């Protein structure tokens, strides 16, 4: 970009506001000495500058375009406390092993954002700036949300502990399954799958993200049959059972209508898709808090912008925003299943959703210390290509506060859906039992499962069917920092 003044340092006063075009860094968007305040929002971007653009100028440009700047100087800045409103790029680091990429740290004053509005926050942070020409590619890697700003958000309507208390289920991961096939079942046939899976031993069943109200099954029909199945299963097992009724619709008004009907039928949980948009998510979250409803979020669409390493945004930022916007469940990776997920990255997502505070941990992709300001915990959901033969790995990598969803692994069981559900539950219970008894369950997982299968035929058949299935592909979204051992001197 042209630099008519040739200035190197930040300009002040009249020089700064003379009509014309200035480099972003002399306009005050690059402040290497700036110390972020506790109340600042901080964003970390991965920047790939256009050839010929310096890294600090690119960072300043991102700071400018995501806050107050436009392409030319405007005198109306002088009517404001512009120094405050200007975002400040204060640090640029080279990305390890990626010669053309930089991590830029940018601080934003809290007053740039509307309280309790993810839409407003994101309109700045991931707004115009992502199409900006000065950068070839741009990715939002992480954010530090100040406690003061977090306190304006409701957070998860229920939270992990209250959810467990409502369900009366403790000390083990929860089990779920997505009804399959995804599309085409009539309401009556759909409810059959729900009944079999819940009665067989799962805690939850789930609508898929694209099950809304289609010609083959309208929403009321689905709700009615599913709740018949849920209640029958509950009576058969003396357990609280639930089916994530997807209330996603074309308008928010229709969503409320569906959510109200779910409540009327006594469902404990409803579901939405990430593609609703942040405002609709916050609206339904408030409705859920008001109506004692657990709120499940399917992350439909996220991979379009979160998977590639150089452009878009990291999924951990979605996790942060969704914990703020307020959902109780969010799909966050399986490590061992069919969908993208490096183990360390997934741990970073899980920590972001579940911990009261997360320290800086670059190997997990956590660049900032984050205090969660009493916002509830959001339960991660592991779904996609996982099966009972991996139970020891799932428990080891994902821990206790997680919902393990075995869709194909339940419905595709050779002895039927109930048998599939029971096999999953027996595998899970035997693994938790072994863990508590102090057994090295990660190493001895297959033995533990084989032993449990002796008194559970469905488990044996499940193990026989899936024992060799795994998905070993390279992850695309991997950590930039690997933990290093300091050599002894």
């Amino acid at each position, binding site marked *: 970009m042209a630099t008519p003044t040739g200035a190197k340092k930040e300009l002040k006063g009249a020089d700064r506001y003379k009509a014309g075009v200035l480099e972003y860094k002399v306009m005050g968007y690059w402040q290497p000495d700036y110390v972020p305040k506790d109340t600042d929002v901080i964003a970390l971007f991965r920047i790939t500058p256009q050839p010929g653009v310096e890294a600090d100028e690119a960072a300043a440009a991102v700071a400018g375009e995501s806050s107050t700047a436009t392409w030319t100087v405007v005198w109306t800045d002088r009517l404001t406390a512009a120094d405050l409103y200007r975002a400040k790029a204060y640090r640029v680091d080279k990305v390890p092993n990626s010669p053309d990429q930089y991590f830029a740290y940018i601080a934003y004053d809290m007053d740039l954002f509307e309280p309790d509005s993810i839409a407003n926050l994101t309109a700045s942070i991931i707004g115009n700036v992502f199409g900006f020409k000065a950068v070839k590619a741009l990715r939002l890697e992480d954010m530090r949300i100040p406690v003061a700003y977090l306190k304006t958000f409701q957070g998860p309507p229920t939270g992990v502990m209250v959810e467990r208390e409502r369900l009366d289920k403790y000390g083990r991961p929860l089990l779920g399954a997505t009804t399959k096939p995804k599309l085409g079942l009539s309401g009556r046939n759909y409810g059959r799958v729900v009944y079999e899976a819940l009665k067989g031993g799962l805690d939850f069943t789930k609508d898929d993200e694209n099950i809304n109200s289609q010609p083959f099954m309208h929403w009321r029909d689905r709700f009615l049959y599913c709740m018949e199945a849920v209640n029958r299963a509950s009576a058969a097992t003396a357990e609280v059972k639930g089916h994530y009724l997807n209330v996603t619709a074309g308008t928010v008004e229709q969503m409320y209508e569906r959510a109200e009907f779910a409540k009327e039928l006594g469902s404990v949980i409803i579901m939405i898709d990430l593609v609703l948009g942040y405002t609709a998510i916050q609206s339904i979250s408030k409705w859920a808090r008001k109506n004692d409803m657990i709120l499940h979020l399917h992350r439909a669409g996220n991979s379009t912008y979160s998977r590639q390493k150089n452009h878009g945004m990291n999924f951990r930022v979605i996790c942060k925003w969704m914990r703020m916007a307020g959902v109780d469940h969010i799909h966050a990776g399986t490590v061992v299943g069919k969908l993208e997920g490096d183990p360390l990255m997934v741990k970073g997502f899980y920590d972001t959703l579940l911990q009261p505070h997360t320290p800086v941990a670059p190997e997990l992709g956590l660049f900032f210390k984050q205090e969660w300001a009493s916002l509830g915990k959001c339960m991660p959901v592991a779904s996609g290509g996982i099966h009972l033969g991996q139970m020891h790995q799932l428990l080891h990598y994902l821990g206790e506060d997680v919902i393990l969803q075995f869709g194909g692994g339940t419905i595709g069981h050779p002895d039927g859906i109930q048998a599939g559900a029971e096999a999953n539950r027996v595998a899970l219970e035997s693994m938790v*039992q072994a863990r508590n*008894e102090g057994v090295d369950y990660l190493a001895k997982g297959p033995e533990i499962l084989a032993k449990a299968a002796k008194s559970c035929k469905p488990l044996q058949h499940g193990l026989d069917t899936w024992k060799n299935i795994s998905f070993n592909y390279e992850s695309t979204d991997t950590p930039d920092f690997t933990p290093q051992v300091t050599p002894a001197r």
Partner: protein
Amino acid sequence: MTANPEEKSEGVQAFPDSFDLEGEFARSNVQAVLEKLDRELVGLAPVKQRIREIAALLLVDKARRSMGLETGAPTLHMSFTGNPGTGKTTVALRMAEILKNLGYVRQGHLVSVTRDDLVGQYIGHTAPKTREVIKKAMGGVLFIDEAYYLYKPENERDYGQEAIEILLQVMENQRDDLVVILAGYANRMEVFFQSNPGFRSRIAHHIDFPDYSEKELMSIAKLMVDAQHYVLTPEAEKVLRDYIPRRMKMPHFANARSMRNALDRAKLRQANRLFGRKDRTNLTRHDLTTIEAEDLLASRVFQP
């Protein structure tokens, strides 16, 4: 996973041909505990001997078990008899440690109680109280001091009997979970056992704690003085030597405990003496650590 009865019965268990008693003893760290006891308690040779014997018995018992020789679950409940201040509680603490090291109790802690901790004031109060104490002691050693107070034959409706019955049941049925040590004066314990044969039959080891000799009491007192960073002047030491036989003849003599009390009072008088001094603006280290003859001579033991 933990013991599954089905698994145990699978196949014939092969027993080893030899047992490394020496190695097992070294691993158990029992020697270290015995040495600690030697440092903590002066004299008490017969008691220490009995502890060594019990440790040896338990080790051999373990060896026999490892070779599949029928032994039966050992009874480990004990009675410690002797006058106050003869080291019963300290020995009980070390005994808990030894039992833990040899694998006869899981946690190795000691819960020390008297009648008031076990017996309630009204109907229905005693059982939960006793059970609460037993629960706290589970996996360790329950030390009941002056155990004979549990039994009050003069009162027909005494709630102590309820506590006794619960204790006896646990001592019999949960020998793996809890070791009980009953303690008190020898003669009164004897009477107690006569009227409660259930206890006597469940107790495997009786240890008698003899009174300390004058010489031993002197060593104990000097150890205490040392440990608290005080020094006796030669005159004070002479007075203390004179003090001991006089105190032994008086009522409520409690061996080591009486020594501690005597020194506590001497410390009090020393403090008062220092406070009464005119030049108290510059006390020396020597002043602060020294116990003079007069600090001991003021004791009622020397009053006519």
